[in-house]
């Protein structure tokens, strides 16, 4: 049977190094299968997060050969066979142990976003067209592959806000939150988030840019600013 070498980070928040493991390769095997093999046969205390193993829960994110990926969807036979496969914890989050990182920050940021609130007296009729637009954002699995160590909330949360702001029946306005607390202005639209999204959400084009336009309209549109000045609000 063919074998692959996985070069896996072992360590904690203070220190660590990569360790090589030889793993038998079966057809169609993914990196997460190899990590499970290592746990089951070579290193029972190897820390890995995972759940569904089907690309639906977004738990098993890691840097595979230097690129953030879901290990459950990364096939060994898609990677170069002549060199070790490096598997490192996500760079964007503080390390806890091995491939497990501290993602508590995500939950803290998420709390700041007010959820859906229907407009008063709304009729619960929605067209499929409106649903389709928003469902692109709702399919985010919160894997945080798109996240970088940034000074702002990051793509996942812009996707969430886009889903709320574009909900046809939502009655809240989150423009100020985007501008002041989530730091939307800091994103310089390089599309690096869109490139790594396993759900193929067009984060930059469909979420971030429209939200930026909304913030501009709300706060920086000269006519609106003039109007505000006159009204003194």
């Amino acid at each position, binding site marked *: 049977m063919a074998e692959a070498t996985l070069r896996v980070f072992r360590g904690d928040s203070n220190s660590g190094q990569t360790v090589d493991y030889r793993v038998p390769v079966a*057809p*169609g095997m*993914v990196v997460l299968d190899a990590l499970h093999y290592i*746990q089951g046969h070579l290193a029972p*205390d190897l820390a890995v997060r*995972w759940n*569904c193993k*089907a690309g639906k829960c977004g738990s098993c994110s890691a840097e595979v050969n230097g690129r953030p990926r879901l290990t459950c969807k990364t096939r060994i036979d898609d990677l170069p066979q002549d060199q070790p496969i490096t598997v490192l914890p996500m760079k964007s989050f503080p390390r806890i142990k091995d491939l497990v990182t501290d993602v508590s920050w995500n939950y803290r940021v998420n709390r700041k976003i007010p959820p859906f609130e229907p407009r008063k007296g709304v009729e619960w009729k929605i067209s499929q067209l409106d*649903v389709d637009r928003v469902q692109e954002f709702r399919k985010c699995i919160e894997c945080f592959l798109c996240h970088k160590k940034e000074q702002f909330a990051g793509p996942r949360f812009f996707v969430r806000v886009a889903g709320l702001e574009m909900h046809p029946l939502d009655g809240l306005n989150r423009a100020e939150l985007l501008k002041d607390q989530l730091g939307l202005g800091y994103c310089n639209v390089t599309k690096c988030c869109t490139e790594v999204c396993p759900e193929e959400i067009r984060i930059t084009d469909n979420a971030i840019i429209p939200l930026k336009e909304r913030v501009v309209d709300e706060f920086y549109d000269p006519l609106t600013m003039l109007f505000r000045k006159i009204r003194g609000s």
Partner: protein
Amino acid sequence: MTANYETREHDVLIIGAGGAGLRAAIEALAQGASVGVVCKSLLGKAHTVMAEGGIAAAMANVDAADSWKTHFRDTMRGGKFLNNWRMAQLHAQESPERVRELEQWGALFDRTESGDILQRAFGGHTFKRLCHVGDRTGLEMIRTLQDRGVQQGIDVYMECTVTRLLTDSGRLAGAFAYWRENGRFIVFKAKSIVIATGGIGKAWRVTSNSWEYTGDGMALAYEAGAELMDMEFVQFHPTGMVWPPGVQGILVTEAVRGEGGILRNKAGERFMEKYDPKRMELSTRDVVARSIYTEVKDGRGTEHGGAYLDISHKPAEYVKKKLPSMYHQFKELADVDITKGPMEVGPTCHYMMGGIRVDAETAESTVPGLFAAGEAAAGLHGANRLGGNSLSDLLVFGRRAGLAAAAHAKRSSTLSIDSAQIDQAERELLAPFSNSGTESPYAVHRDLQEVMQNLVGIFRTDEDLRKALAELAKLKTRAAKVSVEGSRLFNPGWHLSYDLKAMLIVSEAVAHSALARTESRGAHSRIDYPSLDPVWEKKNNIIICEGGQMKRRESPTAEMPADLKEILAQD
């Protein structure tokens, strides 16, 4: 001795953060209770996220003739009349309101032309009844509940595993748990506890379930003296992936068949004609799973031992729109384009119909103050669950459990925690670090999965089940001796050592109950007793812990009122 654990106190403690746990939390919170939710994974990653096809609710948006009565009848028929009829009635009556509530909290479902929630056909449902979002309904549901719950103020203890329920003079007082991240201990004092921990799929080798589904909640309740019921009824979903090996068992949604997918054997025959000519591919899951299994066993299976499931006769754009995650799953993991050719599928362990015996109105177990909802609870689905009835179950009985748990907490005072129980829980949990020897928890788990897969699978016999019980006894001895290396810092080998204990308890309950039920009903198929036995329609198997021993007894089912009988009699 100074306490080496932290203590938290809540009126209502909920174990599990899938759909049932979160819905219970939201309801208990709305009643003014302080609510803690403990979950083994990160919030939002529970198995509900995997649910694909939809939520069954008789909203009659597509088929105007649908009503709770038809939904009730379908559920009872699908469950081969072993269901708790009151639960089936409440479920059918309340699920439309629970779906509308989700929508009001921000969930967005696919729509009809007139702008209402769209509903699709599914196995065993007379009408188009499943409210859905493409094939990712569970994700929509869990995000909605998660955002709602967090905003309303639930305290979530993530990556935290409860290993024991604590009692004070026989009354439920709290729970003992450890943090997966650092291995430290935490004690919860609570007046009411809701178990919403899901099922036990990880005890089988081929399963659609994730690592979390190790029967924890059922084992905790059992050890606390609660009754387990209908444990012989394990659902094997007819369509899991079979190739390549690494993806074996991953779910292929029933929505593929709901949208018109056709099953064929290697000779190209549409074999469901033989097994259920009326309902064909949309027969109930027990029937379809047995049919595929039989085709394969009789040499008519595909190259990798499954059946072909084909949706490629539908327009490619339609398939991609209605089944987007199936399209990607097969393309990325199996190199199959489902818009062009068939998938290979076979049965995979999916769901536990049995579980903690509960009261239909309150979801309270036979232990006062201990509630259960969702897959961890028994009753609603009887001998076989219809697709789509799980998500509605979570909502209907999650809410009822939260309501009753909050009411119970209001009536109760906080009890004291017995330090001797905590000491014992700690010792038990830490034993694998001091055990000598080389027994690996992973090896015991692999062997357990083989036993359950081969001896307690889709088709069962007296001989196999007795053999399984003997093997489980040996595995229990081995599990008690497992040793682990490394520290208490995020150590999966150590975590599995406890999960093994729960899996073994529940597996034994399954084998015992399956051995006793000398008939074939729903998901329980005995080769040596191939027919329905009317005597067994009138009784449930109950499993209980007495004097440290697992005991089984039979309990007569409740008599159904005349008006419901009349509904069942209609066609």
